[in-house]
């Protein structure tokens, strides 16, 4: 019995996700069997159990599913937003909405993904969708 195959060669999904972000692309695995996307990226589809996955670029469009303002003293940087965004393609992720007062972020707000490169490794944040 073979213990390795091509599917499990090369970098794992965390690395692939991060490498895409470094190149400026927001991408997630999509299942080739049930066609669902998932987040966080895995080697197996958590919806149907298939290992038959491919990476697809996302539209970056999403909607705020829930939101909280983490209270912090102004001298420590002030309040900030933590939210869940449901992507147009289905998955939900934790993020924050930037460019608005944290207390003004509302459930249902349409938002667009932006890659934040301010820290060691890039991550997704959101801004209010244009025209919303």
């Amino acid at each position, binding site marked *: 019995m073979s213990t390795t195959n091509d599917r499990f060669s090369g970098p794992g999904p965390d690395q692939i996700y991060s490498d895409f972000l470094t190149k400026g692309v927001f991408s997630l695995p999509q299942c080739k069997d049930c066609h669902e996307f998932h987040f966080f990226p895995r080697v197996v589809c958590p919806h149907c159990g298939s290992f038959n996955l491919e990476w697809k670029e996302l539209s970056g469009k999403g909607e705020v599913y829930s939101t*909280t303002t983490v209270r912090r003293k102004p001298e420590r940087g002030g309040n900030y937003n933590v939210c869940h965004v449901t992507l147009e393609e289905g998955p939900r992720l934790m993020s924050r909405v930037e460019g608005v007062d944290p207390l003004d972020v509302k459930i249902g707000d349409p938002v667009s993904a932006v890659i934040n490169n301010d820290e060691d490794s890039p991550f997704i944040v959101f801004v209010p969708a244009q025209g919303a």
Partner: protein
Amino acid sequence: MSHELRGSSAVVGVGLAGCGEAHGRAPLDILAEATHNALEDAGLKLSDVDGIFTGSSYHFMPALSTAEYLGIKPRFSDSSMVGGSSFVAHTLNAAMAIKTGQCDVALICYGSNQRTAGGKLATMSEQQIYEAPYKPRYPISSYALAAARHMHQYGTTREQMADVAVAARQWAQLNPAAFARDDLTRQDVLNSRMISDPLSLLDCCLVTDGGGAVIMVSSERAKDFPNKPVYVLGTGTAHWHRQITQMPDLTTTAAVDAGKRAFAMAGLTKDDVDVVELYDAFTINTILFLEDLGFCAKGEGGAFVENGNIAPGGSLPVNTNGGGLSCVHPGMYGIFILIEAIQQLRGGCGERQVDNPEVALVNGNGGVLSSQVTTILGTEAVL
């Protein structure tokens, strides 16, 4: 035909120790004192214990460290870690171990010094790499996101969540052992410092020290002990996620499944339940669990807890020790809801005693609404 585990084992001893502040005590010191108290309650010796069930935020191999400290050589050990719900889950594992002869005397135990050791949640939890960049406050922001969504979807209000804290405080005022017993009003909760919207300081559980221990034996043996046995009628476990983004619906917990499984094993329904002990790490928990366990419809939990309905004198006694919100909450709270349910079924809870309860429901929570474990306990009348 009833489930083979239904009522197959019973609790014959409980003990608490160090609840509130236990200055200078290590977690295992507190655990050992609680164990001493439970053994004394049962009329047993440490050398009688041959099964150990424990969890810890301090010890990587909790059963090993605990048995070593206590000087026992167990035949069966279980450190299953499903967060604060672990100790409720241990009732199922202990019942199975006793039923299959793996052990005769099961000790479920916990101890923590998290208040006097620094006042912050002690955790060995790994960082969630897809959440860390956003700096959620762990665990409160996860519960805040659930509360915000519940408010949005069902119109639940901060006032209703505040009423959960007020009810818990009113129970605590009837419990001399509770940590927070000052008067508390809905307005006090609403006015308390906001931490992670919509949850404010008084929507959050206490940070205390404390330990608890529970002794279980087979039902055949249980009648030979000094206390009225409390039978484990059914336990159900369920988990649907670990980190909050993976929770399928922020307004519905896996207690839906855990509760169904526990009721099925017990052969009972929610109408049979006389007293309810829920893991109230935050006020929203009580609302979610009352819905998910079927005490009210989804979305109606806010209205259900309003105006004293779960407080002393209300229609359903919930969190009769004062809860994690006002009685005790040393990091993981599961063993304390178990012990309060057992004490209520035995009787003798003084001012907070519910009128002749025969069936108690306990629902433990672990992680961030992640693990749910329901146990249904009963007196001999419902065996």
